[in-house]
């Protein structure tokens, strides 16, 4: 039912059904081979692992574990990866703060510098490593979205800045990439806004951008090193805007346009489930139209205490995750986990619907779905809940449950996918010790 509302919002005036043709025509530059895509989706507070991990390794049994059941239609695209560890999310001498570290380490494989305010530092995230290298091939180098804005007040986790528990993607070691939370704005980012699509406005923008770049450069020269670093963030960001403007200006066919019949969403849904699904729809659109090949999507910030009343769980997620082995609470955690996998299933459905080459986008996708915490009660960072979804353009053989030796770094998975995205010359990412074996 909720799903229907989301669809209506999204496909306003588009008639019924998600007809496939809206996708087939999207060009991938000059190549005939569909590109690979890399997506990371994060869920907070770990998962109820007994309902997540299949009993057997090897080929997935027809019946999936309870939490993964919504994914049944995409079983052939799923690899369940057990045994991966985010060692840098452990205290390692820094004391408490597992939630902040879990999110901050997830894609960086680095230890977050413990600070509430001054001098945040972590590392570049896997998605940004790829975006930096191949991002210039698409309209957007990468897309970062999420359901939650930052936390509004108070500390976030035990002396760690909220930047750590609200940001999955890091462009530089002190520079998180803000996520867009409004589906309407995501649509604008993908297909451009009215002003971007008007050549006169674009020219005026280009002049403004040019002027402020000069301005920032001259300002930078007058500043001390720590201040200059802040201006560098500005310069990098404004250059990115400049690059996009230039790209839009090229008449090349790499400028995505909204598929026929697809109109921007009217507003950001107030219902949290609709909100998540509509964001998923937007991301699906971005991938389908090849506006970007790299994305991260945060279902909820780490340590989130959101109530899931709409699925019969009025308690706060984080409070529940400290379940103390109480079966009632564990069942509720499982319910939240299953709700999130149902959103994932919705997203995969969108991607599967659209044909691409001989198959669909899932054939070319590499999607990592999971959390930087294993069991919310123990705050452990080994035995993480991790799914890898998609065939990666034939480079991944899914439909299996793979169990890795204890302490295998999660970063090994990142390294393997960075490699599969065609980024060469990277031999290490965070605390990686090599590539993951056995994925193909």
């Amino acid at each position, binding site marked *: 039912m909720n799903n229907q509302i989301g669809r209506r919002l999204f496909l306003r005036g588009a008639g019924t059904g998600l007809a496939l043709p809206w996708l087939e025509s999207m060009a991938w530059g000059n190549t005939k081979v569909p590109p690979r895509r890399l997506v990371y989706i994060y869920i907070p507070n770990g998962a109820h692992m007994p309902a997540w991990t299949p009993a057997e390794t090897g080929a997935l049994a027809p019946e999936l574990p309870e939490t993964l059941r919504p994914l049944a239609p995409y079983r052939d695209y799923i690899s369940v990866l057990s045994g991966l560890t985010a060692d840098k999310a452990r205290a390692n001498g820094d004391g408490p703060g*597992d939630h902040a570290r879990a999110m901050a380490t997830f894609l960086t494989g680095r230890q977050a510098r413990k*600070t509430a305010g*001054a001098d945040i530092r972590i590392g570049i995230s896997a998605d940004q490593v790829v975006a930096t290298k191949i991002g210039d091939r698409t309209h957007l180098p990468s897309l*970062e979205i999420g359901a939650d804005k930052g936390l509004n007040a108070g500390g976030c986790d035990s002396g760690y800045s909220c930047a750590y528990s609200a*940001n999955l993607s890091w462009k530089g070691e002190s520079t998180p990439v803000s996520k867009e939370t409004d589906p309407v704005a995501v649509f604008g980012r993908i297909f451009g806004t009215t002003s971007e699509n008007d050549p006169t406005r674009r020219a005026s923008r280009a002049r*403004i951008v040019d002027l402020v770049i000069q301005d920032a450069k001259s300002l930078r020269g007058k*500043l001390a090193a720590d*201040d200059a670093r802040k201006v560098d963030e500005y310069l990098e960001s404004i250059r990115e805007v400049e690059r996009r403007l230039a790209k839009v200006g090229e008449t090349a066919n790499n400028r995505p346009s909204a598929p026929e019949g697809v109109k921007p969403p009217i507003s950001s849904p107030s219902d949290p489930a609709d909100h998540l699904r509509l964001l998923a729809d937007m991301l699906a659109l971005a991938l389908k139209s090849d506006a970007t090949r790299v994305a991260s999507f945060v279902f909820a910030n780490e340590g989130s205490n959101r109530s899931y009343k709409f699925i019969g769980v009025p308690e706060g997620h984080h409070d529940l995750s400290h379940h103390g082995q*109480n079966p009632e609470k564990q069942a509720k955690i499982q319910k939240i986990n299953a709700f999130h996998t149902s959103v994932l299933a919705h997203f995969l459905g969108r991607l599967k619907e659209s044909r691409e080459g001989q198959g669909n986008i899932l054939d070319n996708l590499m999607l990592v779905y999971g959390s930087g915490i294993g069991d919310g009660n123990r705050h452990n960072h080994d035995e993480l809940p991790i799914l890898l979804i998609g065939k990666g353009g034939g480079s991944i053989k899914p439909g299996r449950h793979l169990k890795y030796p204890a302490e295998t770094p999660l970063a090994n998975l990142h390294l393997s996918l960075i490699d599969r995205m065609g980024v060469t010359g990277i031999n290490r990412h965070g605390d990686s010790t090599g590539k993951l074996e056995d994925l193909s």
Partner: protein
Amino acid sequence: MLFSILILATGNPSYAKDVVAFVRQHCAECHSGNKAKGDFKITLPDSESKAVELKPQWEKVAKVFRTGEMPPDGKNRPSVDSSNRFNQWIDEKALGVRCDGKPSPGRVVLRRLNREEYGNAIRDLLGIGFRAGEDLPADDVGDGFDNQADVLSLSPLHLEKYLASAESAVVLALKGQSRKRIGAKLEIPTRKDQLKPSIERFLRKAWRRPPEEAEIAKLIGISGASDSKPDEIFSAALTAALVSPRFLFIVEADPPAGRPDRRLDGYELATRLSLFLWSSIPDEALLDAAASGKLDTPEGIRAQTERMMKDPKSKAFARNFTGQWLQLRNLKNIQPDSARFPGITESLKEDMATECEMFFSNLLEENRPIVEFIDSKHTFVNDRLAKFYGFSQSKVRNAGFRKHEFSDEKRGGVTTMAGVLLVTSNPTRTSPVKRGKFILENILGTPPPPPPPGVLELKDDPGARKAASLRQRMEEHRRDPNCSVCHEKMDSLGFGLENFDAVGQWRVSDDGKAIDAAGLLPGGKKFSNPSELRKILIENPEVFADCLTRKVMTYALGRSLVAKDRCEVDRIVSDLKKKRWGFADLIVSVTTSEPFIGRERTDKPGANP
């Protein structure tokens, strides 16, 4: 006494006697070896010169020691004299803090406007009701506030939004202008020779200082074509000015070579003042004060601070500060279980926030003592909130918010306001732990460390709920010595508020069991109800004054306080005591303090490239 305030001893402490022996006697039992408690091990090098290099260690030690958190109750208490010498050694030797000279101002890294400030600045510059900040990504929070320079980062998404929002705002402002003049005095040039003065006026306000000739010339030349119309050039120039780093960042020059620090000039100070008290840019009067040198004296700063506190724009201070200090911004994300607590609508939550803001503004306006934050005989309510609280209704309906004098001792101060009680509860029940933690963090300034991982959780299933009250279950739970160190203090404080349910309404029973709001604090202080708890909390106003001053300074400066800021914090607190704790006096003390009016050179190597 629960929390000790430090009195510094004189004379030179010795490393061997006052540090090594002290640590061995009072800390090493728990904080050494592989099983060090709290994941914290104290290292004691042989030589003093090596010991002073362990700055982070001593910072941590100083913090828990000064607040009385360590050594925990039940352990041998060090004598006042040896404590003082130990503290003095940490301060002077390890952290390099000496309060006997000129206080050093500290350093804020180049900070950008946050979304509140950005939105307000656009409003004040262009005189339009356009809420420019709303589309921007949320600002990350550091040290409890969203205006902290270090964590305010910039991403391409920000720049895209700045650009789009500057375009829309300027178009909107110029369109509005052509119909009728509103608010700000934007003078749209119709002739080319009017461009320069118009742009100059705009830049002075937007960039918060008189612009240089070259800067104006660059903006006039923005169109690149000689046949552009003046209004088109004007519009492009304004847009560029609003995307420029000189608008988005708070630029302060470094001290000249060879000088450790400098006093901010009038314009820089004007910007700090307006961001602090208005979350916006300076108005004409403030810029004029800067230009005429009036901000170069403490008296001048005081006069402007007092004027600004009375201006309606200071509502932004009330809203943004209380929204974060009292965590009222989290009200939006809190959804109490509607089956248990019906009727908590968005408008009611908004009223709860307004109550705290009005209470805050009133203290500021009337320079009332800050202890009223902890215990007061009044609050502010509208009809809806009065009904919610069960207060006698005003005879005039729809009277809006007004002062309400309490007729009993049930409530008083922020810890009994519904907004605070609601954000420190779980959706289905109260959380004495969260409430206790809130008091420790935001009233007493002694945040507890978080629980170690893997600790057993409170039994909270229906069976357990039937068998014992929340309080009994928590007491049972607290027997674990690993937990009791912090929880004794935290839970006792929180239990003192048990007469307020999870949404802040008064109650005398919970799940059929009578509420017991009595408590015993470490050190032996007893209370039997919320009112007595409040009396204990204000017994030593210095403790709260220190906490509030630190919060206000963090907010005012946009940076974390560092060890040496203690000197100025201590001075402000002792000045304030002489002035009977007036809240407005506190604000003036902050705006005239050395960290607020000065800027230090970076101590990082490789500076000034």
